[in-house]
């Protein structure tokens, strides 16, 4: 825990976004995580993405479960709404919130323990429902908060701080998502904001459930030699499979497309994700091909990062359930709760 709060001073060339806010205006309270924790860098990437997108703080809802990672919503956008749920229960809470108020932007921050162990079932159903939210897994291969036990994302053979090797196969949230019909899948690294920030921005613009698995080293319990989730190991084994560039809506992009045969995916709101430097015949909309690509690379011990799969066609939670176009708060009470008579009439139908 730092000795002081971050001084309220700005660099003279600090920029302001469309709302007139500086990057500093998107910060939260001081982090209490260990110095050097990857999670803090993910927080900084979120701060930057939201600032660049000029998200209005009061239109944001921060969702989380339990874990070091799940603490991080306290460290960005103090002015936003938020819900810190029980361990692993963030997906259903976020689903409910989403159903009730579809006008907010939902950003969930979870951990590999929170999402892939205790909360795995909930996560699967949120994926299936295509809940409209950004779902970040700060993946460090351990339960950081409870002092470094292997989590379900630990690779076979990775060593604990005491030298013991993990034997159980890992759950890869990206491959899991592919198999469950997820509509936006990306992997980042906390040590590479240049890659992570545009992915976050695209995820915010995506119309459904956007999973971003971020390798986020735990400096205290999982950054040693023998760990496959350390800063050094990640840097040595990571490939940036795709380079992405987020182009906001209403920006003239046609002229900018270079002749390098890039792929571009237009998102629902008119923004565009441009892929460059993708491997030959990589198609971010071909579920099967992406699954194959991921499995091949995993077998070769490579950590594939980048925005890997996007599907803008599958209906999201609101479209599937035909929910009202506005937040429930704007639906008149009489309509929300039609009264005892209507209930009786309804029950009559089933007698």
């Amino acid at each position: 825990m730092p000795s002081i709060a971050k001084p309220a001073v700005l660099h003279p060339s600090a920029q302001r976004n469309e709302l007139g806010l500086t990057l500093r205006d998107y910060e939260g309270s001081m982090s209490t995580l260990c110095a050097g924790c990857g999670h803090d860098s993910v927080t900084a990437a979120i701060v930057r993405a939201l600032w660049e997108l000029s998200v209005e703080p009061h239109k944001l809802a921060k969702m989380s479960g339990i874990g070091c990672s799940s603490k991080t919503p306290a460290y960005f956008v103090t002015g936003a709404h938020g819900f810190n749920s029980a361990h692993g229960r963030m997906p259903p809470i976020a689903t409910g919130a989403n159903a009730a108020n579809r006008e907010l932007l939902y950003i969930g921050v979870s951990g590999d323990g929170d999402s892939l162990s205790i909360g795995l079932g909930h996560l699967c159903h949120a994926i299936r429902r295509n809940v409209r939210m950004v779902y970040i897994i700060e993946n460090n291969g351990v339960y950081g908060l409870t002092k470094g036990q292997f989590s379900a994302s630990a690779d076979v053979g990775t060593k604990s701080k005491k030298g013991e090797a993990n034997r159980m196969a890992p759950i890869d949230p990206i491959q899991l998502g592919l198999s469950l019909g997820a509509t936006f899948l990306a992997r980042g690294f906390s040590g590479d904001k240049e890659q992570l920030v545009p992915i976050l921005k695209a995820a915010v613009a995506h119309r459904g459930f956007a999973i971003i698995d971020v390798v986020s080293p735990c400096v205290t319990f999982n950054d040693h030699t023998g760990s496959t989730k350390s800063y050094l190991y990640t840097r040595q084994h990571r490939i940036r499979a795709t380079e992405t560039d987020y182009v906001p809506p209403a920006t003239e992009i046609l002229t900018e497309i270079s002749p390098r045969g890039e792929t571009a995916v237009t998102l629902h709101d008119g923004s565009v994700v441009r892929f460059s430097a993708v491997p030959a015949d990589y198609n971010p909309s071909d579920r099967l091909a992406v699954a194959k690509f991921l499995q091949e690379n995993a077998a070769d011990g490579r950590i594939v990062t980048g925005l890997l799969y996007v599907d803008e066609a599958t209906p999201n939670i609101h479209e599937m359930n035909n929910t009202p176009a506005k937040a429930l708060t704007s639906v008149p009470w009489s309509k929300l709760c039609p009264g005892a008579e209507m209930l009786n009439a309804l029950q009559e139908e089933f007698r």
Partner: protein
Amino acid sequence: MKPTDVQDPNYYHKVVDCQWGCPAHTNVPEYIRLIAQGRYTESYMLNRKSNVFPAILGRTCDRPCEPVCRRARVDTSPVAICRLKRVAADLKGEYGHLLPPIPARKNGKHIACVGAGPASLAVANDLMPLGYRITMFEKSAKPGGLMRSNIPAFRLPGSIIDEECGVIIDMGVDVRYNTPVPSLRGLLQEGYDAVFVGTGAPRGKNLEIPGRYDTDRIHIGIDWLESVAFGHIDSIGERVLIIGVGNTAMDCCRTSRRLGGKDIKVMARRPRDFFKASPWELEDAEEEGVDILINFAPKRFVLENGRLVGMDFERLSWDVQAKKSQTLETVFFPCDDVILAIGQENAFPWIERDLGIEFDKWDMPVLDPTTLQSSLPNVFFGGDAALGPKNIIWAVEQAHQAAISIHNFCEGIPVTDRPPNGMNLISQKMGISEWSYHNDFNPAPRQKMKHVDLVERFRELNVEVELGFSPEQTAREVQRCLNCDIETEFTPKRCIECDACIDICPTQCLTITANGDEAELRTRLSAPALNLEQAIYASAPLPQTGRIMVKDEDVCVHCGLCAERCPTAAWDMQKFEILISLAGTQEWNTALVPA
């Protein structure tokens, strides 16, 4: 960019903007911390080591440190460095025992100093502890030079001058008062090992326009101030015109206000942005009801029946840079007295031109600006007499340099062999997230100096106007200092590139990026480094990716958060101390704080 060499004492010295900006390189952040800890005597002594006259300078310094203060770049106004110096001086305790001992056995060398102003006294201060015998010649009855004669007592009380000059004289300097030196040849014939000329710039510039010599109501500013200081003049007419708008003009108008002047006008040729006077001196004069009129060039003095009745001025209109002017009309201003405060000149009528001291076309001695030695090897200059009128703090610094030269000269070492500066760099870590300095940022605004009220201050000529900071003001002002001497020291080989420092830095000073040349690097940092006067630090390549750590020094607030968030202690906060050599580099000079 090549990796920055932080072992070069100048690198971190430049980061301490105030100290770098001070001609005598006073260790400002350290003396402010000592004040914060209530260690006023030590703070005073630390000041004294570099600037010799802390109580005098705490009231009168031109403060070159303040415009460059990092705090001004962070939140508009600099730390009140000068006024804090006065706090240390006001609250100091006994310090006689902390002064360097004066050897009873002399080194056999005898130096003559001409003038007993700040330059000569500072030379004596540096040389007496080395065993020199010093004889000082002063034309007036008291020491202090222009500090006494030209700075009015309501800004600088005589008792303060007495004390700080006295401490040096009491080291055993043989001062001959009321003894002007009429001939340098004569002095040289007395057989001194070296002569130091610290006679100031004693001649006020004249204004040769019609009517100048037809009345005795036109005064030369510095001469008039001197007459007031020594009690020869105690009144002036009600309507006074001051010609010129430098600091002497401000002293003249405010003195006039105390001697009976009621309608006092300072007449400036140029617009306000081009004034020489320090902004705070202008403010103080205006507070006392003095009018400052711009764009008036003096044309002639107007006399009626042999009596001065006023002056004609040409009203000018200037171009933007105030380079070219046009005369609009002639305007008459009535007055009883005129004071000319348009600058000072050097005058050396007592130096024979055949002694081997070369003079240039402006009739100034030709000196080596580093050694301050003249073309006659045993004659040295310092202060306003050396390179033209500057200010007290420059006089002190030149005296330090001249003392080094004199010492070398007497020891038979080439005067160009300057003793090197050293540096200390010491970790301030006390524990996890714990530092030995107060690292928090205090958003308090600059404290305003309280003044004696407008009635009381005119009661007597020597009522000091500035009251000094109250304890509460002092407590707040010391907290505004950003501790620029506590450096962010980086060890590249420990860095794991986790970005924690970059994410925590409040002012976006840090970037990890691919190397490039400096100009290009400056454009692609976390925040573009647009202030080219401030260095950017570049590290050696980092172990994991070969990128480099770059730090823009410009607005680092030295909060230490980068070091607190660093998991590998690649960043540390280390106190930098530049060890400036003085003559003989006495041991007491290198200790950070006297024991």
